[in-house]
C-alpha cells in the first residue's frame, strides 16, 4: 500500500483494491494430529531409519557413541534436545511472524518421543555410573514426564470444562465471597456460640487449602466443613427438641451452598494444578539435562 492511499488523515486506507487475507490454519484438529499427523510420521520415519541402520551395520568392537552412526545419532539427539527446549521461549514470543504454536507442540511431542530411540541407540546400550548414562537417564525422565503431560492434556481439559460449566474462575471466587457476605448478615441475630461457628466458616476457610489438602482432596478439617457439621448437629438437636430454629436452618443452607461452591472451586484449582504439575518435573529436569548434556559432550572430547 503506497502512501497515496493513506488519505482521510491517517485513517487506514479504505480502498476497493483487494488485499488478500493472510492464509491461516482453520483445521479443527488437536496438536497430536496436527496436519494429519505430519510430525508423528516424520518421527516414526526417523526412528525406523535409525533402527534399520543400527541393525544393518556391525561396527567393531561394538555399537557405541564413537562410531559414525553414534556420532550422527548423537548430533541429531543433541540438536533435538536444544531445539525442543526452545519451545518454552517460542510460546512466549508471539510477534507477527507466521508460526503455529500447535505445530511446534506437535513436533515437540513426536520428535521428543523419537529421542527414546535415537538417544538409546546412540548409547549402544552401554550404561554405567557415569555422566553419560546420567544424561540418558535425565533425558528419559524428561520424556516420560512429557508423556505424562500429554496424557493429562488428553484427559483433564474435558473434566475442567465439565466442572466449570459456564462459570469463570473469578465468578467462582466471587460466589464464595457473596455467600460469605450473606452468612455475615444472617449471623447477626445469632447467639454468641452459634455466631462463633459462622465465624469459623468465614475466618478459617482456605479455598485452596494446604498442599496436603490440595493433593489429597480432603478438606474435612477445613473451617467451613467443621462449621457445617456443627451447625447441622444443632439444627438436628432443635428439631428433636421440637423447637426448630429457622435462623439456624438458614445458616445451614448457606453453609451447604458454600461447601458446594468450595468443592467446585477446589476441583477447578486441582485440575488446573494437574495440568501444570508435570511441568514442575519436565522443566527443571530439562535444565539439568542441558547441563548434563554439556558435561557429556565436553567430557567425550576432553578425554578422547
Amino acid at each position, binding site marked *: 500500500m503506497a502512501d497515496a492511499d493513506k*488519505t*482521510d*488523515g*491517517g*485513517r*487506514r486506507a*479504505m*480502498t*476497493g*483494491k*483487494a*488485499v*488478500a*487475507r*493472510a*492464509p*491461516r*490454519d*482453520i*483445521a*479443527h*484438529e*488437536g*496438536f497430536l494430529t*496436527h496436519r494429519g499427523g505430519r510430525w508423528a510420521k516424520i518421527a516414526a520415519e526417523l526412528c525406523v531409519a535409525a533402527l534399520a541402520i543400527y541393525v544393518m551395520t556391525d561396527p567393531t568392537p561394538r555399537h557405541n557413541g564413537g562410531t559414525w552412526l553414534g556420532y550422527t545419532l548423537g548430533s541429531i539427539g543433541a540438536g533435538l534436545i536444544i531445539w525442543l527446549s526452545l519451545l518454552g*521461549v517460542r*510460546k*512466549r*514470543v*508471539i*510477534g*507477527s*511472524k*507466521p*508460526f*503455529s*504454536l*500447535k505445530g*511446534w*507442540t506437535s513436533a515437540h511431542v513426536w520428535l521428543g518421543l523419537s529421542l527414546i530411540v535415537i538417544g538409546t541407540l546412540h548409547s549402544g546400550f552401554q550404561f554405567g555410573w557415569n555422566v553419560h548414562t546420567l544424561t540418558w537417564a535425565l533425558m528419559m525422565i524428561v520424556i516420560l514426564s512429557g508423556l505424562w503431560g500429554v496424557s493429562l*492434556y488428553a484427559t*483433564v*481439559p*474435558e473434566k*475442567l*470444562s*465439565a466442572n*466449570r*460449566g*459456564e462459570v*469463570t*474462575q*473469578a465468578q467462582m471466587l466471587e460466589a464464595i465471597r*457473596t455467600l460469605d*457476605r*450473606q452468612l455475615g*448478615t444472617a449471623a447477626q441475630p445469632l447467639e454468641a456460640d452459634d455466631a462463633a461457628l459462622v465465624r469459623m466458616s468465614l475466618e478459617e476457610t482456605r479455598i485452596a487449602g494446604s498442599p496436603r489438602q490440595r493433593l489429597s482432596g480432603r478438606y474435612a478439617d477445613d473451617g467451613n466443613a467443621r462449621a457445617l457439621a456443627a451447625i447441622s448437629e444443632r439444627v438436628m438437636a432443635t428439631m428433636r427438641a421440637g423447637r426448630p430454629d429457622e435462623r439456624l436452618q438458614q445458616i445451614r443452607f448457606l453453609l451447604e451452598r458454600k461447601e458446594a461452591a468450595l468443592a467446585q472451586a477446589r476441583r477447578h484449582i486441582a485440575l*488446573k494444578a494437574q*495440568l501444570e504439575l508435570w511441568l514442575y518435573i519436565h522443566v527443571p529436569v530439562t535444565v539439568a539435562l542441558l547441563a548434563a548434556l554439556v558435561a557429556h559432550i565436553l567430557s567425550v572430547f576432553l578425554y578422547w
Partner: protein
Amino acid sequence: MTPYRIAIVGSGPAGLSAAAHAARLGLSHVLLEKTDHLSDTIFKYQKGKHVMATPSQLVLRSPLDFEAGKREMVLGTWNEQTAAAGVNVRIRAEVTAITGTGDPIPGSVMKLVKRKRDGTSETQDIQRLAPPYRLTLADGETILADTVILAIGTQGNPNLMACPGGDLPHVQYQLDDPSEYTDEHIFVIGGGDAGIENALGLAADPAQNNKVTLVNRSAEFAQAKDANVKALMAARDAGRISIMTQSTTRTIEQGWITLDTAEGEVRAPCDRVIARMGSAPPRSFVEQCGVEFASNDRLAFPKLSATFESTAPGIYVVGALAGYPLIKHCMNQGHDVVEFINGNLDLRPADEPILEAKFTGLPGARSVADWLEYLRSSVSILSGMSSLQMREFMLDSSVRLYRMGEVIFERNAPGSSLFGIAEGQVLVEVNPADPSVTVPIGAGSIFGEVGLISGRRRGATIRAGSDCILVEISRTAALKLMSQVPSAAREITRITTTRSLLQIFKSGLAAEDLAEVIAAATVETIRAGQAIIREGDTGDDIFIIRSGSMVVEKLIGGKPVFLNYVPAGSYVGEMGVISGGPRTATVRAAVKADVIRIPGEPFRALLASRPQLLDTLRAEMANRTAMNNFIESKKDSFSGVVDLYTGVANFLVEQGVGEATDVLLIDEKLCVGCDNCEKACADTHDGLSRLDREAGRTYAHLHVPTSCRHCEHPHCMADCPPNAIHRGPTGEVYIDETCIGCGNCQRNCPYGVIRMDKVPPKKPWLLGWFLFGSGPGPGEPPARWAKKHDPAYAEKAKKAIKCDMCAGQDGGPACVRACPTGAAIRVSPEQFLSVALMGREER
C-alpha cells in the same frame, strides 16, 4: 419592543459559539438556555470525563477556544470566554413555541402527518408566517427576533411522571452525584440503563444507608445492557436493592409513593423519586416551528440549505440537530451561521480544505462546489441530495481516477463500500475462470452494492473498462444516503435485486431476462427464528437471502435435525420450483434477515427459456439432497451423534454466530486453560487483550469466548460519532485512532466484546523478564505496573478497543497461532457449521 437580530436557542457548543460570534460582530442577540447552566449535554458528562477534539484535521473557527481535555476545563473555558465576549445569556428560558409574526408566506404550507399508535393518521397544515419570529418561553414571556438559530441538540426532554404528585420537588429526572444522598428511601423509576446505573450508584456504598427500590413497568429488563441487568440482580441477591417489576406509579405524596403492582396496590415510604423513563426527541417541537424533516425516518434530519437555513425562512438549524454530532463541527457551524445571517454568503465552509484534498489529482480543474455538483448530477443515486448533504456525504466518501484496466476490487475481497460511476465504465468479470468474459456497467450507475447490503465478500472482480472517475461511498455514508434520500434507497434496492439474481444464477443471464422476475419479486424482512419455508407445506416461491443467514432443518424421527447453514448471498426453495411437491425441509432465519421472495410462476418461465440455468439449479439441488440423505442415514446408525450435531449447531446459532463472519471457538476438550491466547492478543495489540477466554457460553465442550465475531452488519458501527469503526480490507471490523472514547460501541455490542481501556506503556525486552524477572512478562501488564511506569497513565483517556482479526499479521489471528493444543480456531460460520462438524462429534 424591537426584535433582536438573532435569537439563539440552546447553549451547547453550536449555540454558544454562534452567540459569542454574534457578540463579537456587535449584532443584537439573545442566547436562550433551558437549564440554569451553559452547555447542558457536556455539563451532564460524569465528573472528570475526557472530552475529545476530533476530527483533528478540521480547523476551529469559533471565537471560543476548544481543545481536548477534562470536562471541567472545557466548560470553565467556555463560561469565562462567554462572559468576556459580553454574550447576552438568559438561563432558565425554555422555548415552547416559535411562530412568525408577519404575513402568511404565500404557498408555504407545511403538511405534518402524525401517526397514532392505533394506526390512524392525522394531517396538520401549518401555514408559515414571515419573520420576525415570536419565541414563547415556558414562563409565558415572549421574545421577538428577526432570525432564529435552533441549536437544541438531540437529547430532547426527559419523559415526565404523569401521575398525581409527579410535579413535587422531590421528583427528579437526573442524578448527578449518587454520594449526595444518605439515609433515604429512594425509588428509581425505569428499568433502562440509566435507571439501573442510578440505582446501583445509590446503593453502592452501604454506609450511605439508602433504601433503593427500582421500579420497572415490564417483567423483563429488555431495554438494558446485559451487564447492567446482571449487576442489578447481584445487588438484589445481596439485599442492597429491591426490585419491583410489572409495576407503575399511581401517586406520589410527600414522604410516600403508591404503586400498582401485579399483586395489587402498594404504598411505601419514599423520600425521593428519580425518574429515568427515557426522553422524547425534539422533533415535534422543531416541526411545529415550520421546519421540515428530510423523511419520516426516525433518524432523519431537517432539510437545510447550504447556509443552514431550514424550510422556515429565517430559522436556521445547526449542531447535532442538523446531523453533526461532533463538538468541533458544531462550533464551526455556530460561527458560520452567524456569518451567513450577517450577509457573508461567500464564506467557504471549514471543511473546504478537506474536500479540496479529496479532489486534487483528478483531471479537469474544477472548484469544490463544481465537483460536488458534477458528481451529484452524474451519479443517479446522488441526484436527490441538497448541496449541504453532498458536502457532508463527500467527507465520508472518496473520489478517484482509475486508469483503464486497473482492478478496482477483486472477487472474494471483503468490502462494504458502494461505488458510483461518474465518468467512464467498469467491467465485471462474471466468470472467475476466464477474466476475459465481462459485463460492462456504465456511467451514472453503481456497483459494489452486494457488500453494502450483505456485508459479505465481493462476488466478482471489477476493473476499469476505460479511464473512469469513481466515487467510493463508505457503508455509513451509503446508509445515511438511503435514509435521507428515498429515491436513492429505491434505486439501490432495484439494482441489488437484479444483480444478486444475476450473480447467484449466472448461466449467461442478462438483466433483460430478469425483468419479469424482478417485477414480481418482493423484499421481506424476516425476524430471527421466523420460518420462510415449512416442511410439508406446498409452495414454490424461491428465496434469495440478501442479509442475515438461515438454518435448514428437517424433522427426522419426530425431532428437528439441523441440516445446513445458509449465509447471505445464497438461495433456498429451488426444489419446489424444479420438482414440485411439498417442501422437504424447514428454513428459518438464524438472525434478522432480508430476503427476496420470487414467486414460482415467472421463475419457471425463466427456467423454461434458459435450460442452462435449470442445470445449475439441478446440480445444486443434487448436492443438497445428497447431504440430506447422508445425515438421514447417519441418524439411523448414530442417532446420538446427529442429535449432538443439531444441538451444537443450534447452540452456535443462538450465540449469534448466524450474523458473524469470523468467530473464535474453543474446543474445551483440548483447552488446557493456559490463557496463551489472551497473552498473545495483548502482546500483539498494544498490551491489551481483546478477548476473554473463560467468559462466554459453552455447549458440549464447545466454548464461544467473549471475542469479536466481526458481524455482517456490526452493531458497534451503528452509532459512532466520529465514524471511527470500519470494515477493513480483509474483512475485519476495527476502530481507528479517531475514537473519542464515548463508549457507544461498547453499549451497542450485544456480545460484550468491546472494552474501554487505556494503552499501557511498552514493556521491557522479554528476555529481560525470562532471565532476570524484569517487567511483567508476557500478556497484559497489570494496571498497577502501568501506573508505576508511565506517569501520564492515570490521566490518559480510555478508548474503545476490540479485535481487529490481526489484520496485516502473517499467519492469521495471534490467539489461534498461540494456542499450543489446537483448541482455538477462528472460522467463518459456514466453514464450521457443515457436515464436518459431525466428524468432531464422532470422535
